[in-house]
């Protein structure tokens, strides 16, 4: 078999970025599966795309804009209705120790 397209280290990294807590067995299972997927998709590289513009969107349309008009929002009660945890006015989430501090 050809060299794996993705190694265990990369899978760990991707899992970490996606905040997924994977077992060792899962990591090795996904390493195999992801490699197989990447190998399959690599077939596309056989196509000559030298003269083809990169595609930003699969629909041949652009400029779907709306006017700056206010629409009714859900309101606090409805907004919070499906929240796993909430108080009167806010969503409650596990304590955030370090904040994003913007983008």
């Amino acid at each position: 078999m050809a060299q794996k397209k993705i190694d265990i280290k990369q899978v760990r990294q991707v899992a970490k970025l996606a905040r997924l807590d994977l077992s060792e067995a899962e990591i090795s299972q996904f390493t195999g599966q992801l490699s197989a997927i990447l190998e399959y998709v690599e077939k596309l590289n056989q196509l000559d795309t030298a003269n083809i513009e990169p595609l930003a969107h699969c629909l041949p349309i652009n400029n779907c804009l709306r006017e700056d008009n206010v629409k009714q929002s859900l309101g606090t009660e409805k907004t919070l209705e499906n929240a796993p945890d909430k108080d009167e006015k806010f969503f409650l989430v596990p304590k955030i120790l370090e904040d994003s501090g913007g983008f």
Partner: protein
Amino acid sequence: MTNIDYKIIVGLEIHVQMAAKTKMFCGCELAFAAEPNSKVCPVCLGLPGALPVMNRKAVEFAILTATALNCKVAEFTKWDRKSYYYPDLPKNYQISQYDLPIGSNGFIEIPVPGGATKKIRIRRVHLEEDAGKNIHTAGPFSQVDLNRAGTPLMEIVTEPDLNNAEEVKSLAIELQRIVRFLGVSEADMQKGHMRFEPNVNLHIKKDNNEYKTPITEVKNLNSFKALEKSVAFEARRQLDNFLETGECLQSGNKKTFGWDDIKEVTVLQREKEEAHDYRYFPDPDLVPVVVNEKWLSQINSRICELPLGMQKRFVSDYSLSDYDAGVLTSDKATADFFDSSVKAGGDAKRICNFITQTGLKIANEKGCSVAELGVEPDRLAELAKMADSGQVSATAAVTIFVEMTQSKEQPGRIAEKLNLIQKSDAGELEKIVDEVIAANPQAVEDAKSGDKKSKKAHGFLMGQVMQKTKGTANPQVVAKILASKLKI
């Protein structure tokens, strides 16, 4: 002895909140200090099936700003997803623009000391959405308010062309003026409409070698003062650190700092290196934006004279000081009001004084601009002419101006009503001067004596004339008559 010389290098990222009524991708209202989570819809919540739709106004505002900042406006731009792992954006990504920003390769001119200007290159201007707010209260939870999530933001990124803290502040203030002139943002610092992130490092020359210190980014500054102080602090800290450790710039040693407003120091933020893997990819929910020439020229027809250009014009055409011109052009309404008033025939310096010494104070108290005080520019010009011709005194003119903001009457009518018209008729005033002279022989003698008492006696006689005319005599005319009479 080592020989050290260094240069501060700063690039600035600025987030500016747009003056739209609704969010970037949905019709939820942008409302400051609204009830938490009241301005939220399925798009803000990232619910399955909810689709974002671009706000035309926000797109046009960004294009307008890009043009005003001398950028090339992209004919084709698209939207990208940037991975984001905090609960204040529930989609788990921020919609932003990665490789095709709306504007690129521009520049901004900023005032520097001595009335000169400096060109700072603008790398890019792009649109994105803001996050909500995480509130860290006591207890095991954080509260999340999504009202702000989805607010349209412009991110403006400069090249590292700024070389000291004052220049950084100057750019921030100039940008505030520009976005306000264009009407694309209220740029209210108190409401967090402008947030700054300077990237700072030093180029150090030591013993004929050049060193670069590691770049640090200071996050999320929301006042001009914090911006200026944090850059100055970082420069000092980096110099000290270099002298102590010799640490230099390498790939991967960029650090992120926060700013402690109370201690006035930068604070290293703990962060995982991998956190910077944003994994951008095109957002399949949003179609691209194509800006054709017709749309672009339609948008750009709304560009007005920009503040720095106007400031320079006030100095060169109206002979104002750079300081006065700067005060007048700090907001567009005031600048336009001044300009119209001068164009209606008012003397520039006098109109400037009316505005800067009286108008701004009243406007501040009322919480509006000078242009909204209810005084028409041509009426103020009339008042300036009355003061210039000696019809009213400078002091009376100020009283009339204040009255004009209340009664909306013509300055001439107000002057009559308040009995502020100066008597300048020499014949009439001469009679009064004669009466005063006849009634005060001692004072006349003292005045003529030329010794110490003379000045005081002069003042006394002058006062008598003013009293007789109830303060309406033109003091210049009276002084002239009195001087000629006392010489004899």
